[in-house]
């Protein structure tokens, strides 16, 4: 076991345990907080994978914005907040079985691929992934169009969400 394998395993356990708590805990605010823990574990993975920009963005966007939005939404729909009773369907075992089956299938497929236990190549010297990402995002032969499209998507989401949440205002 090398040190980075140990760090990976710790964060994997953090992610999976928190994800399980997200889907089984009864209290919705707790579920949102467990989601924060799971997403933080994913940020650790990004850091291990040398994607430092994504690791920080994961914390800023998910923990700083999306988790806050979730907590606000839970507070706005208060009636369910008190509802400490069961939050899962009566026949919850069908999705559970489905999940286990899909996981088994995926694991079978993944482990059957050739060369899947390869280790990461070294990042070529002189490649600054941060600047390369910036160049790729705005250069026309890179991903300029998806970049602008993302901005239009977010604009549409903002307009739509504001309209739906507040409704027609005289």
């Amino acid at each position: 076991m090398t040190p980075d394998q140990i760090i990976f395993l710790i964060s994997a356990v953090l992610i999976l345990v928190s994800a399980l708590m997200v889907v089984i805990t009864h209290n919705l605010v707790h579920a949102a907080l467990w989601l924060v823990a799971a997403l933080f574990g994913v940020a650790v993975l990004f850091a291990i994978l040398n994607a430092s920009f994504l690791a920080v963005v994961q914390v800023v966007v998910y923990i700083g914005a999306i988790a806050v939005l979730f907590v606000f939404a839970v507070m706005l729909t208060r009636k369910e907040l008190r509802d400490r009773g069961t939050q899962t369907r009566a026949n919850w075992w069908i999705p559970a079985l489905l999940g286990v089956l899909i996981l088994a299938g995926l694991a079978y497929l993944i482990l059957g691929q050739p060369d899947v236990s390869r280790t990461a190549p070294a990042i070529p010297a002189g490649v600054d992934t941060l600047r390369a990402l910036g160049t790729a995002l705005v250069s026309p032969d890179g991903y300029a169009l998806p970049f602008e499209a993302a901005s239009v998507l977010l604009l549409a989401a903002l307009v739509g969400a504001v309209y739906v949440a507040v409704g027609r205002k005289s």
Partner: protein
Amino acid sequence: MSIPLSWYLILAAALFCIGLFGVLSRKNAIAILLGIELMLNAVNINLVAFWRYLDPSRMAGQVFAIIVFATAAAEVAVGLALIISVYRRRSTILADEIDLMKW
């Protein structure tokens, strides 16, 4: 970097399946959205792991992950707005009771 690629893929698959379970088994619409967030993150782990393990000098994986971030933000914004709107009109956020479109 002595972690095999398969570890990331298995972890992402497990996270995806947990998210799927959450989406299918939860009654509360907000909890369903929480499950969707988990599934999107599983996708992101895969994208970044492939970027790192296949060709780190091409940024496609990271750009995709960024687009997924934007999509996740848009999805949460609209999804929660819909839930709040439904809650206002029908004062429930249980997915089973929001069945007007079923008939």
